[in-house]
Each structure stands twice: as C-alpha cells, then as structure tokens.
C-alpha cells in the first residue's frame, strides 16, 4: 500500500480564519503532517507610514493595528512618545486610561468567545457575546464618538473628561450574570469540552521558545502578566489568571476568568472616578512637538499578548524608525508546530483558541 500525502489550502477566505490567514497544510488522510502559514494579505505598511508622517498624523492610524483593541495600541504609542518627553500623568488620567483599557479588553475577549464558539459550530453564543459587547461599544461611542477606532488618548492625556459612568456601572452589574450563563451553556457543554480538552496542548518550553505571551502563555502555567509591572496599574489590585493545562479549554477558561478580573479592576476605579475633581491636564501642542534624539521602548499587556513599540528618533519631526511587536504574529508562527499530528477538524479549533487577529499580524 502506498501512502500519499497532499497539500490543502486553508484560507485565505475561510470564515474561521478570522480575516485573511492562509495555512498550507500537508495532509496524510486527515492527519496534518506540516503547516506553513502564509500571512501578508492585510499589510498596510504601518511601520513605513510612521516614517512618512509626523507623530500627530500617525496617531489615528495606530488604532487600526488591532481594530478590536484600539485603546491598547494608541496607549502604547503615546506612552513611548511621552517617555522621551518625560510626562507625568495625574491620578485621574491614569484611572481613565485603565478603565477604558480594561473595558476594551473585555470587549475583545467577548468577541473572541463568540468567534471561537462559532469555529466549533455553535452559533448562539456568538449572538450572546455580541449582545454584551454591544453595551461596551455603545459606551465607547458615547464617550469618544467612535465604536472601534477611538483616537481618544492623546499626547499628554485624554481628549476629554470621562463621562456617562452610570453606563459603566450597568455594564459591570450585568456582565457577571451573563458570565454565569456562559458557564451553563458553554463550559458545561460536553460537546464543547470534548472538542477542546486535551487538544492543542502547549507546554511551557514550546511556548517560551515560540515567544508566546499573554493569555496563551498564562494558560500554559507561566506567571507573566505585564500589568503586574505596569506603572499604570500600580495601585490596582488584581490577580493574574494562571492555568496549568495548556490546552484549548484552559485558554478559553483563562479568557473568561480574565473578564471577571477586568470587572474587578473597573469596579475599583469607578468609586474614585465618580468622586474625582474635573480633569486638569497639560496637553502637548503636537505641531511643535519633537521627540528628542534616542531610542525608546515600551510594552503593554494587550488582549492578544505582549505588544511593544520601538522608536528611534533623530530629533526630527518624523520618526526615523518605528517597530511594532504584536502577540498574534507569534501565535501564527506557533501553528507550524501546534497543528502537526492533529486532525484537520481540530485545526480550526486549535488555531481559533490562540485568538489570532490578522490586522495585528500583517501590520
């Protein structure tokens, strides 16, 4: 009997690749022998654009690196620029930033829950997750005027004072009961468990070798949450979510637990923000702003892993070089290893569990 292998193109138009990821799989029957990711369908030249524009022109585009977590990338870019300008924020500005970042994290994780369950063939959780996410997006729209590309943080602070806090109160009042619903319909569902438990196991050594960060790394048992070292989160109590199994199920559970942790962080800030004085800040005039010569580096814990920004400036109004590090880029690279030996029908479930988003990969 001769064994024949063949190549299968998964994507780039496959609905469960969340955009335009193309995987070239080598199969023997339904077993995956090798996987070669092909990225770049969504490349917009974010790094090249940074060299062609001034900082204030570039600022609105950074939200588009990850359209589900826009606040994180604008905070990261601004943080790096402010590092060179030695700017200190008031307590209230910091609280506003953390509140919005955590709401954004919840929205991002909720969308992932819906999309992941859709990958596994369950349609209804998608609508439940979007219903909850909608509350957060409505609030963002009220506050910033935009549902996804906020452009709300700016050099030296935020564009306007925080408002409509009663909406946030409603959100964190409603969400915990919805998470309980998810537990009933998803976490205790035997079909869901059998498709995720023990599938796509990622051990610590592989995870570190492939530079996996964020929830995916913590679900493999490494206690590395950048928020623990982040200046912005200094006075805030929270527990990084660590799980040891490293399979698809643990990555799912870790994200759901992270939503609860984010709710806790938000409720700590709400009391303070409601009583706080009106916002006073010294915004920088972006037209005369010049980043002093030197190299700058900043990091942030984004929903899809560690994101970092490297800037080299020559003191000119345009930056000499800007480099983004995004979590998903490394998760895609991990698929080379993680899918091998699994069956084709699990490939979608495993790739989905890593929370890959393509604009972040292609930049």
């Amino acid at each position: 009997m001769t064994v024949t292998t063949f190549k299968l193109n998964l994507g780039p138009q496959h609905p469960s690749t969340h955009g335009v990821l193309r995987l070239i799989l080598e199969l023997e029957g339904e077993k995956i022998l090798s996987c070669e990711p092909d990225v770049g369908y969504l490349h917009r030249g974010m790094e090249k654009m940074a060299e062609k524009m001034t900082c204030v022109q570039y600022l609105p585009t950074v939200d588009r690196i990850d359209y589900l977590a826009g606040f994180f990338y604008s905070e990261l870019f601004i943080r790096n620029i402010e590092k060179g300008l030695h700017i200190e924020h008031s307590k209230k500005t910091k609280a506003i930033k953390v509140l919005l970042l955590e709401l954004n994290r919840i929205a991002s994780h909720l969308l992932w829950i819906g999309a992941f369950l859709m990958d596994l063939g369950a349609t209804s959780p998608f609508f439940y997750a979007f219903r909850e996410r909608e509350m957060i997006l409505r609030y963002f729209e009220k506050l910033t005027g935009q549902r996804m590309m906020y452009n709300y943080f700016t050099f030296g602070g935020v564009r306007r004072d925080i408002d409509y806090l009663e909406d946030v109160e409603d959100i964190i009042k409603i969400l915990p009961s919805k998470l309980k619903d998810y537990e009933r319909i998803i976490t205790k569902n035997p079909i869901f468990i059998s498709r995720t438990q023990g599938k796509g196991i990622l051990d610590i050594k592989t995870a570190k070798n492939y530079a996996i960060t964020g929830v995916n790394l913590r679900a493999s048992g490494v206690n590395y949450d950048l928020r623990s070292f982040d200046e912005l989160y200094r006075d805030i109590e929270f527990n990084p979510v660590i799980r040891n199994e490293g399979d698809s199920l643990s990555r799912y559970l870790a994200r759901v637990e992270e939503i609860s942790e984010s709710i806790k962080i938000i409720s700590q800030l709400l009391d303070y923000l409601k009583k706080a004085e009106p916002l006073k800040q010294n915004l920088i005039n972006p037209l005369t702003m010049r980043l002093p010569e030197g190299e700058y580096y900043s990091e942030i814990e984004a929903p899809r892993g560690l994101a970092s920004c490297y800037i080299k400036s020559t003191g000119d109004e345009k930056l000499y070089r800007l480099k983004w590090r995004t979590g998903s880029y490394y998760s895609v690279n991990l698929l080379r290893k993680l899918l091998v030996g699994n069956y084709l029908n699990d490939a979608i479930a495993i790739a989905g569990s890593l929370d890959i988003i393509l604009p972040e990969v292609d930049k």
Partner: protein
Amino acid sequence: MNYNDFKTYFADAEVTEDKVIIKDRLHDTIEFLATKMPFDMLKEITAVDSGNGETEIIYHMYSDDGNEDLFVSTTVREEAETITDIFKSAIADENEIYDLFGVKFNGNENLKRIYMPEDWEGFPLRKDYVETDERLAWNNDSHNV
C-alpha cells in the same frame, strides 16, 4: 544578574546602559544567553537601517526569572547568522526583516517575501529605497486625476 560569566566568554562585547553591543559571534552569544543564563525567551528582533548599507539588528531577550530584559545589538551588512535553531520564534522575525530590509539569514530556509508581493523589487524600510513600482497609484500616470 551576574554578567561576569558573560564577560569572560565575550570579552569584546560592549555593555552600555540599555544594550549589549557585539561585533561577531552572534549565534554563540544568543546560545550562551539562552542555555547558560536564564534568558529563555526571545521577545522580538528589531532591525534598524543605520545608513551606509548597514543594518543594526537588536535581539530582545527576556527572562521571567526576575523579569529581566536584555537587548543584544549587532550590525550586519547583507548577511547575518540565523538563530532559528535556538529560538523558533526567530523564524517569524527573520522573515520579516528579510522582507522589509533585505538581510539574508544564512541557514534559515523559510525566508520569503511575506508582506510584499513575491516579485517586488527593493526593501521598503531601507532608507535608500525609492518607490518606483508602477503598481503604486502615485507612480502610475493612468491613476493621476
């Protein structure tokens, strides 16, 4: 962190405030840091065009034992040593640098154009890059309004 071991092995390395600058033996250095010292993660590789056809490549190593970051910097011309045998994450980084800066990593067989089309000429993040490709609307007369 005790850098004494490192200094005895790599006496010619220049240690500045925020990075270690090495001239050669890149592969050995990274291997030493990964196996003999606790830097078991390579967070990213950054390339910067430093002019005169030279590219500075910065390796960002991380150790979660003590939460330490270490930047190792080296300057190359057109070719560099691959470290994909030590860190698999470098497959992605080296490919990106090849695509945008044109640096070839000897020993990395996966190098190909990822963001740019396969037949694209030039490497867009190099400072001497000139956009002349007719597929760009502003270089093509028929697209001018």
